[in-house]
């Protein structure tokens, strides 16, 4: 039987063949197997999209229509338990445009055993969190008379983030060249080596000090250990997938980010494509809408097939269009026409929009086939 089915490899997707194998009783007759497989092939063929079907427009309509019903809100979860996440239409637009800077970057960090059972979860979260000097400050005293800045350190916070005061002094001294950094109990003193300093420079220095990076993972500005089902995960605001992946207690397989470009850089284009689908579908589900996932998959495919994540914008997917008229009809027509004319581009009129503009039959559906006849002699 195995052999009988093997014939159909290539005609049917491998996953489907696996499924058929699982369902067929072992002692099926050879003729029956053939009958069944022929029928399945027929069915498979008839479920495929026909040539000339306008899948793009249908996808656009299928996503666009329900999107009009979406609430234009970012949801705010009450309390500390969850964080603010961009959802709804703004998030869809963010994904489809493939924005470099997203409004609310987020990660869901899954952990390995035994940490996922809750071991040291708070400490792990603290280790991930990015710490800047401002996180440890209780009070700043600026003494303009001797160009000195005294910082009162919150020792408890320092302790809970497992940062030693020596480390603090060292990192500060490293990033502040030309200054003496000293610590005495909880008072950190920063003094210029130069004799005289402009008072406004002292204030600038104060602001600079606040933002100096001390420890943790850059970009992760908020952490939240959360119980999801049976296990504990860490949800973060701010994303830095590359650095998180380096940590030994992180389950690298399941850890997620919502930053498409970061996923593309760290995990590659296939992962980016998958996350476009997931992220979009998540929003749609959240809004209680129902869009067939294949429409979203088509969008994800068009965004990713070039090997880089490209948004559906005039700099992304639309720029790749070969037709000048199609590009010009999307946004900034004059710019496109002028650029095209500089290099003498030719529009072959192969796609839909150009032909609508010229009032010619469009090459989809009934406009696809052409009829040729042999002239009688």
């Amino acid at each position, binding site marked *: 039987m195995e052999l009988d089915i093997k014939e159909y490899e290539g005609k049917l997707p491998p996953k489907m063949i696996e499924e058929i194998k699982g369902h067929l009783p072992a002692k099926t007759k050879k003729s029956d197997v053939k009958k069944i497989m022929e029928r399945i092939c027929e069915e498979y063929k008839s479920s495929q999209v026909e040539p*000339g*079907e*306008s899948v793009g*427009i*249908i996808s*656009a*309509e299928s996503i666009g229509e329900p999107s009009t019903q979406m609430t234009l809100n970012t949801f705010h979860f009450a309390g500390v338990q969850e964080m603010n996440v961009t959802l709804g239409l703004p998030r869809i637009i963010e994904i489809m445009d493939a924005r470099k800077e997203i409004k609310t970057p987020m990660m869901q960090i899954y952990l390995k055993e035994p940490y996922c059972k809750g071991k040291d979860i708070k400490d792990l979260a603290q280790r991930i969190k990015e710490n800047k000097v401002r996180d440890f400050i209780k009070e700043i005293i600026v003494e303009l008379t001797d160009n000195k800045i005294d910082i009162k350190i919150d020792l408890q916070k320092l302790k809970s983030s497992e940062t030693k005061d020596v480390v603090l002094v060292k990192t500060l001294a490293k990033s502040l060249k030309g200054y003496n950094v000293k610590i005495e109990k909880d008072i950190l003193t920063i003094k210029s080596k130069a004799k005289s300093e402009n008072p406004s420079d002292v204030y600038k220095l104060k602001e600079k000090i606040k933002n100096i990076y001390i420890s943790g993972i850059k970009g992760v500005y908020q952490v939240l250990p959360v119980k999801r089902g049976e296990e504990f995960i860490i949800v973060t605001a701010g994303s830095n997938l590359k650095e998180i992946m380096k940590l030994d207690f992180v389950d690298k397989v399941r850890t997620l980010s919502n930053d498409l470009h970061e996923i593309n850089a760290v995990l590659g284009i296939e992962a980016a494509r998958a996350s476009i689908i997931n992220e979009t579908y998540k929003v749609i589900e959240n809004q209680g809408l129902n869009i067939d996932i294949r429409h979203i998959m088509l969008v994800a495919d068009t965004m990713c097939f070039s090997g880089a994540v490209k948004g559906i914008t005039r700099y992304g997917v639309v720029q790749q269009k070969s037709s000048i008229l199609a590009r010009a009809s999307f946004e900034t027509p*004059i710019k496109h*026409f*002028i650029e095209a*004319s500089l290099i003498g581009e*030719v529009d072959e009129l192969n796609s*839909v929009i150009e032909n*609508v*503009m*010229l*009032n*010619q*039959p*469009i*090459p*989809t*559906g*009934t*406009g*696809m086939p052409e009829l*040729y006849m042999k002239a009688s002699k």
Partner: protein
Amino acid sequence: MVEVFLNGKFLGESDDGDKLVENFLEERRKGKVDSSISISFNKESNQIFLESSQGRTLRPLIVVKNGKSLLSEKHIEQLEKNEIQFSDLVSQGVIEYVDASEEENTLVAFYSEDLTGKHTHLEILPLAMVGLCTSLVPFGNFNQSTRLNAGSKNQKQALGMYALNYLVRMDMDVNLLHTPQKPLVNTIMHEYSDYDKHPSGQNVVVAVLSYDGYNMEDAIIVNKGSIERGFARSTYYRPIISEELRYSGGLVDTINIPDKDVKGYKSEIDYRFLEEDGIIHPEAAVAEGDVIIGKTSPPRFLSSLDEYNITTSSRRETSISLKHGERGVVDFIMITENEEGNKLVQVRVRDQRIPEIGDKFTSRHGQKGVMGLIVPSADMPCSASGVVPDLLFNPHGIPSRMTIAHLIELIGGKVGSLGGRYVDGTAFNSETEVDIRKELLSYGFREDGSEVFYNGITGEKFTARIMVGNMYYLKLKHMVANKMHARARGPIQLLTRQPTEGRAKEGGLRLGEMEKDTFVAHGTSMLLKERFDSDRVAVPVCMKSGLVGYYDARKNKMMSPIYGEDSEMAYVELSYAFKLLLDELKSLGLCPRLKLEDKY
């Protein structure tokens, strides 16, 4: 410390907020502070807001002190004798005006019997909570507030007797209901607002049932007999205005019958109604295209050529004629002059409007709908006693909208017509539903207003009893005759050669971008092309240069813009809009060339 703000700006601080508010109110009631200034104390944020700005809605309330209304019997007596006015009560501090934010600090009693020590104010009348239009809704307190809103909005669009001197007025776009009636179920506001001087609806017999699906989606069905007897008949008036303008150089327009040699002369038939003075005569039945006021204007530009050309007149035809789809009878003509002393002619045209399918009607409860069918009297369902309703209302309109007052008015109207009296439906102070039902019972009807009904077509008895009664229905100013529009061929725009837009210009109905997408999605390529053929042209294209050329009729040849006669030319069929795009690109300094190749 309490922060005090005046019109949103910080004013200062006070130690005792309650005392401040109390003192302020006292001073205002004494008349030392203007009655339109409001004060509100937000205890949560510990702030006091004083407001004197424009655009706030203020509401009069009777002041209550220690659980007792300040408005005494004596005041009422004096008011009745006309010894004091409402404004006197305000200056005496008996009545004060309260705005929306000050209302937050008050506790207002509905009726004087409800007063307790905690109350600060008393309603003058519960009906005073709503505006004029809303208080015209009978039993309004039984409706959902949104319906009340819709109901009062609809009443403003109703046809009726809008002004008693309408015969000498030249209003734009007005309608007049022929036989308006006073509502059987009314409110005290009908009395106070002299509603019987300008009524705007008619009392009709309404049955609540569906009829063959012709009253789906809020449509109503009307008895043809009722229409023939004059139900909802109205007249539409429209003035047509023209004046003799003066131009520089002593040139003037003249209102007269245009000479035949005038530029743009129509045809003699179009001018047939005009009298010697160039104005139409009264009672002329006019239709679209007929000239109402004949007029000629001097030429637009005095070009050098025309100056020597004395033989033909260079004046233009600028008569005013009825627009597309309009008709009527000339009702009234007025010849006068305007502020600048120019001759001004106004002609009022009237058109009788008999209700037709598509006209909009409404009850007073936001239950609007268009007429879906006109049924011959014989085919209307009728009651056991032979009463044939004027109008059928679809019961599906009730559950989701919850307009209970609609149903109560129905029963109330029935009681009113049986008892020969007007029923009081003032919101919050109406006759009670129980009383109305009892009275209906006493007339020998079921107290819920339902009756045994018979199918008008088959004569069969309906299994269910049908609710019938009298209601006040309004005809709204949205009539199909003013709106319906369709076109197959017609005028096109000069620039784009595409059909004009809008009903007034007999325009086409646009197949827009999104509609286009649906054709693409269906793959109906040829159908899409055909739809967009409205501006199709065949342009001659030079095959050498790829530029659009032209046809030289004198030489009977196509010419290339660059090579002249020395090029092979071919006709290419495309949309004129695209030819325009090519021209526009040329104006950008780009050179778009069409590369032609044989299709086969």
